[in-house]
């Protein structure tokens, strides 16, 4: 199996799911299309184009196009760290408030990916949190969440 065969198969599953999901809603008739009409059309289109892709990819497979790992040769753990820290930010933002969450977030990323000196970490994270607080909360009145400390 090569890369396009895999992604094509995933799309086919998504397309089928969209079609099945659309059938839950009223389809109407061609003269008076209902709520599920357009989603069904898009689902059918996804199925059709993924089938075309699967055929295309299978022909390429027969010509010798093999699977190449998309994670090979890169530091994918870095990307994973980013993803987890983003999720943590989203979950901690309301309970901890904007200022503390942002300080921790910036400090963590500065240490975790390419470790910076602690002085840089402390200075950058506090400075970023302060400036962004002043910019978004005070000047632009974005109403960011406040923690137990009021900021």
């Amino acid at each position: 199996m090569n890369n396009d065969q895999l992604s094509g198969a995933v799309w086919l599953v998504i397309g089928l799911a969209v079609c099945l999901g659309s059938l839950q809603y009223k389809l109407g008739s061609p003269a008076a299309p209902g709520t599920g009409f357009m989603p069904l059309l898009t689902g059918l289109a996804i199925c059709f184009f993924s089938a075309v892709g699967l055929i295309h990819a299978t022909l390429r497979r027969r010509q010798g196009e093999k699977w190449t790992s998309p994670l090979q040769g890169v530091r994918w753990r870095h990307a994973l760290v980013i993803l987890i820290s983003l999720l943590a930010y989203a979950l901690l933002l309301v309970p901890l408030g904007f200022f503390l969450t942002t300080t921790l977030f910036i400090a963590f990323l500065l240490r975790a990916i390419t470790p910076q000196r602690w002085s840089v970490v402390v200075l950058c994270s506090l400075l970023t949190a302060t400036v962004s607080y002043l910019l978004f909360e005070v000047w632009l009145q974005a109403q960011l969440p406040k923690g137990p400390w009021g900021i």
Partner: protein
Amino acid sequence: MDFLQSALLGFQVALTPLNLFFCFMGVLTGTLVGVLPGLGPVAAMSLLLPTTFHVTPVSAVIMLAGIYYGAMYGGSTTSILVNIPGEAASVVTCLDGYKMARQGKAGPALGISAFGSFIAGTLSIVGLMFIAPPLASMALKFGPPEYFSLMIMGLTVLTFLASGPMWKALLMASFGLFLGCMGMDNMTASYRFTFDILELSDGIGLVPVVMGLFGISEVMLNVEQSMGRTVFQTKIQNLLPNRKEWAASAGPILRGTVLGFFLGVLPGGGAVISSFVSYAIEKRISKHPEKFGTGAIEGVAGPESANNAATGGAFIPLLSLGIPANAVMALLLGAFIIHGVQPGPMLMKEHPQLFWGTVASMYVGNVMLLVLNLPLIGLWVKILKVPYPILFPLILLFCLIGCYSLNNSVTEVLIMIVFGLIGYGFKKFQYEAAPLVLALVLGPMMENSLRQALLMSAGSPMIFFERPISAVLMGTALFLLLFPLIPKFQKKRPAFGE
């Protein structure tokens, strides 16, 4: 109101101190994000969209438009000095621009791209002023079938010009249309695919999707690579090109302008594509094509003019038909709607100060960019020296704040993160996200016009082929779809992108 009066009104609006300030902020931010690799105009505009809620629609649009054409100026600086495109439309500038810098000609390369951008940008605004009004009056004759066919053609053009196999681009467009269906069905007021998530009842937000696909995923890919980059150490002097360089560049600038403008008007076209086409054309008609890739000034002048001309052209379908030509215009459409203004044929009549004010501000903005950019190059070089390991947490934070402050919703932040992961997967499996974004925006409009058209024709799809304008648009779309199947042309489909 005749033309001169309208233009005067525009300048009256654009030259008020407040609007001058917003124009300045827009072009400055635009240049900054253009200079910084990994942060393009789409991400910057979605970031600043919430900040425009408190100002008048005119000021908001003036600033957001400034970000777009400002980014086109800024992108070239990074391409020339660092050999990394500051944003996608400047990819091709790396080829000759960086080589020129290595030969000690960074000054003329930066200079000609700024002057070329200025000339092209200004001429394309003239084009916009002359073409948009008649097109808008023609569009008043458009019914649902014409609108539907036009949008189908726009999506087809974009998938046709996308890099990689066409089935991938078509898959992305179909998926984008599906995402556009989520939320409330406008015609029956019933909900679909909301998964009981309150935030999805109005449909999936454009900003979280775009920030995830373009902002977050870009950072995830960048941190996987080694993050060192070197700004080419050179003295930047002689920013004003000499007579010989002007003579070599005049043709490419003018050709790039015309080409960029018309590709920009076409829904699905745009700055990225026009820069590639311009480079290909200049190379083909050059008397010394072998010099391209080794530091030919034509290879900088043409594409840089083309991408700026495309920005002016791209405003035409949005302002006269209400249809965005690319992802940036889609965001701008979102901004219009947030401010309660519906772009389209009636915009010029109902909101003349908005239309003409925006257009006039683009003249002002282009002058600002020319005056600002050349003296500020030293500053941009300093910013480029900020190491990426320090820069990327800031980019992520901007995305988080921008997305949250849109509706003060953590759910939307989570949606953004999910689309960051999806975008990462797209890049790994070589799918291009641009058709998805355009389809997501066009989706609800397309669904409405499709259903209205079918109501008109009592269910017969022939309505799209029986009305002349619609038939031409559909015919073009079908031709583009079937073109790659003709064996003779199978390898000839132009492939742009990386």
